[in-house]
């Protein structure tokens, strides 16, 4: 009976929250960044602490009136107005903060996605106890000093490969005294790429698909040594002539022409696995391995391909292709259709 009741209560609460969420969404529309938190989007409600405090104030009021105790009344009224002032300052504490950006670096499935929300406080007053919340996930509570910007990290665990979509986040604070909670909702499409979880090392990519290139190519490549040139920032450390550095103490970079003789095509066709996800995991491992070994590599999936290349950008392209393959959803948080 009790369980039935609590289930019913939970259901009601969920429905109510969905109603409120829908109402807020319709009211505020989709947000663009940067977004200043103005009065029309700040909500404030008393907390349980305030309820208890209010009850105690009532007892104090009755007691003071009963004893006709002037100082008791003065204390009671002082605390009452302190509550009122707390409400005012709680709201003021978030007002005119600016949410500048929301970003998230891609992660592998199974690890934690970190959404970084950058909030600016242009005012000459510190903003206390600000917290960012995404769904049920909360970040650290921080004070934002005057005229400065703080980054709020919210960690969201991931399980599935795909795109983790977040439709709403909230910025909240209950400074001072935790009497009131003031918050705002931001509605926008935020996403975090979730790469497949790399399969355990073991199965190596088949060597069959090695493409032999070489002398035909002109222009800079990374196969045939063609001399040394001074280091420019951005050059791969792998190409630095360390021997020359040890000798002359000058950073020189080895120059090559032509592409790798072994451009490796990583093809889904060749990745064994029980299902798609396992094969993608294996491809993910291959991409990482190829990058680590300094190969030039390309990725071939049914109906699409990533042209060969190497470096961080190439790895990111490949992993994104894997993440987005088949347009899966890595998880939705507060996303409304």
């Amino acid at each position, binding site marked *: 009976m009790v369980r039935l009741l609590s289930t019913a209560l939970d259901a009601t609460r969920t429905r109510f*929250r969905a109603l*409120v*969420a829908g109402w807020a969404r319709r009211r505020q529309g989709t947000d663009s960044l940067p977004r200043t938190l103005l009065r029309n989007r700040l909500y404030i*409600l008393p907390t349980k*602490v305030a309820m*208890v*405090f209010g009850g*105690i104030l009532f007892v*104090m009021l*009755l*007691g*003071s*009136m*009963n*004893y*006709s*105790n*002037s*100082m*008791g*009344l*003065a*204390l009671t*009224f*002082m*605390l*009452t*107005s*302190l509550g*009122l*002032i*707390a409400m*005012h*300052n709680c709201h*003021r504490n978030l*007002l*005119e903060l600016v949410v500048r950006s929301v970003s998230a670096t891609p992660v592998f499935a199974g690890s934690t996605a970190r959404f970084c929300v950058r909030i600016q406080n242009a*005012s*000459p*007053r510190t903003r*206390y*106890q600000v*917290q960012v*919340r995404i*769904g*049920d996930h*909360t970040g*650290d*509570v921080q004070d934002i000093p005057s*005229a400065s910007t703080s980054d709020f990290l919210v960690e969201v665990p991931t399980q599935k490969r795909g795109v983790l979509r977040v439709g709403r986040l*909230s910025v*909240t604070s*209950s*400074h*001072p*005294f*935790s009497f009131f*909670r003031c*918050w705002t909702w931001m509605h926008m499409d935020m996403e975090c790429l979730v790469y497949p979880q790399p399969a355990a090392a073991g199965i190596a990519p088949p060597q069959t698909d090695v493409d032999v290139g070489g002398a035909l190519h002109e222009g800079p490549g990374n196969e045939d040594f063609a001399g040394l040139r001074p280091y420019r920032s951005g050059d791969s450390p792998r190409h630095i002539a360390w021997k020359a550095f040890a000798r002359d103490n000058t950073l020189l970079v080895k120059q090559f022409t032509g592409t790798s003789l072994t451009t490796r095509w990583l093809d889904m066709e060749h990745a064994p696995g029980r299902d798609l996800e396992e094969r993608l995991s294996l491809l993910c491992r291959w991409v990482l391995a190829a990058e680590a070994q300094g190969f030039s590599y390309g990725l071939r999936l049914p109906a699409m391909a990533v042209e060969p290349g190497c470096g961080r950008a190439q790895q990111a392209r490949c992993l994104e292709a894997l993440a987005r393959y088949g347009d899966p959803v890595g998880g939705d948080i*507060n996303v409304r259709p």
Partner: protein
Amino acid sequence: MSVPRQQSAGPQALESSAIAWVIGALCMTLLPHAPYLPVWTLPMFLLTSGWRFWIAMHGGELPSRWIRLALATAGFILVYTSQRGINGVAAGTTLLVVMIGLKMLETRTRRDNILLLVLAYFLILASFLREQGPVLAAYEALATWAVTTSLLQVTRHGRLLASREALRIAGQFMLQALPVMLVLFLLFPRIPGPFWALPKASGAGVSGLSEEMSPGTLAQLSLSDEVAFRVNFVGQSPPTSRLYWRGPVLDKFDGRNWSRSNWSALPADMASLAYQGPATDYTVSLMPNGKPWLLALDLPSQPLPPNARLNRQLQLVSLKPVNDRLSYTLRSYLDFQTLGPLSKRETNTYTYLPEGSNPRSQALARQMRGQAAGNADFIQAVLRKFNQEPYVYTLTPRLLDMRHPSDDFLFNTREGFCEYYASSFAVLMRAAGIPARIVTGYQGGEANPFGDYMVVRQSSAHAWTEVWLQGQGWTRVDPTAAVAPERIELGLPDSLRLGDPMPGGLMRSVAILADIRMAWDLANARWDEFVLGYGPELQMDLLSRFGLNMPSPVQLVLVIFALVGGFLLLLTLYLARHYRPQTRDRALVLYRRFIKKLAKAGYDTPMYESPKDLANRIGRQHPRIQGQLNLVVDSYLIARYRKTDRYELALEQLRKAVQDFKP
């Protein structure tokens, strides 16, 4: 969808600094209670909170549930036995303090800390049930600040604020709260209590006259500098020597002590009173004395204050004990006579002496009465004896032999305070068959030179006698006046012999200190009258001054809402100013004003556009304002970026350009 909530669920390790704040706030609120608590309470609190703090610092386990339960039971029993119950302010406070001490040992979460601080607010309230003086009020204001700061600290997530910053923020909130508090204090509908039976006021701390008198009772009271009551006279106040403030009448003598007989329970026969001479009108504001006694100049007449009556012994009594400051207006006649005969039973009461008590006094009385021509002559003879023989008036007499105190006093020690003289005099009278009784009360009073009132302190406590004479009725005889006339003429302090302890001590002996003392008393009197005495009457008075005659509670609440709302609006504007981002560059401020003007006129002013581009674009579209645009932008660029020695000039040019700019 979920309402955002701070994460606070589950027990979490409390920071030692947060606990230190809680302990500090509690200590501060406990301090005013210290003198009234059983001696073991405070050490117990310090022990448990020290234990808790040690655990917070060095780690370790909180005591188990069984230990806590055992301690709680022991604490409750201790309180119950030492306070004889848990009702009443004193016992309630003790229990509160003990439970706070024990709560320290199970403080795990933020919520526990909050609870402790709420209890600290309660302790402040409890201290006001005992006393409400301005010094305590000031102290408790500081304590409220400390508790509020602690509350700010313990409700924080993450690191605490620096103490100074926390104090500053909490202080700001309290300052912001002050106006709203004042509005509520002045306008909140005051419903005269009590709604439920008041627990008996704690007897401790209330000093004053009592139902009994033995040698030394009044001498002890005389050392107290506490205010008994204050008086405002209408017109000139009578001379000090005539100010006899009548209190309880003691007529039952057991050979040693004087107490009240049942005659005090009967009402006075108003028809038997003949008032004479000029009337004296005055208002008394009486400090709580815990007894149903109202002090009045001998002798008050009709109309008496509400809920007050004269009893058979002509003492003004009220229906309820005076547990709060009480103000009443009276008309007294310093000259009066009681008419009519004394009943047989009354005569018996007033001439009764226990068999065999004070035999030498009784013998002396009979001998002197035999030599005297009449009762009046006899009385004069006794007074002459006090005056001419080496009797001494002192606050520190030798102890009397309590078997026959009157004998010992009259024949051996011959030194004493007013109750010694009054008591012996009454014994002598009764021994001679003259009805006599002792009247206790106050004599004299100090006029406050700063305020137009007189203050009467406990140190003015006095005892005198009344004898019943045929044809005259009850007649006041003050034997102390025979020994030490200066006591009656000048008041107590100036009448004491050297080396006697003196009420007020040093304060009286230095003129400037005496002035300070009087000024302080004035402050106290005003505080009592306007702050503590602020109730339904003063509230109506205040409101009628603003044109609100007899407003209903609903009207009052509406006025409160209007005032508080108005104040919050002002606060919003004030805070808006303080949160406004500060731009140091005056050129930028002016340029922003220009942009605002443009935007208001409907022009597009995207943030990414440089001033030059903006001027060019809008100028091309609207050649009418091209010149103006260029003027503003050019002077802005000069003022902002070409920081020359002509900066002020450029700025002035920009100001004018922006001002004149009409899109």
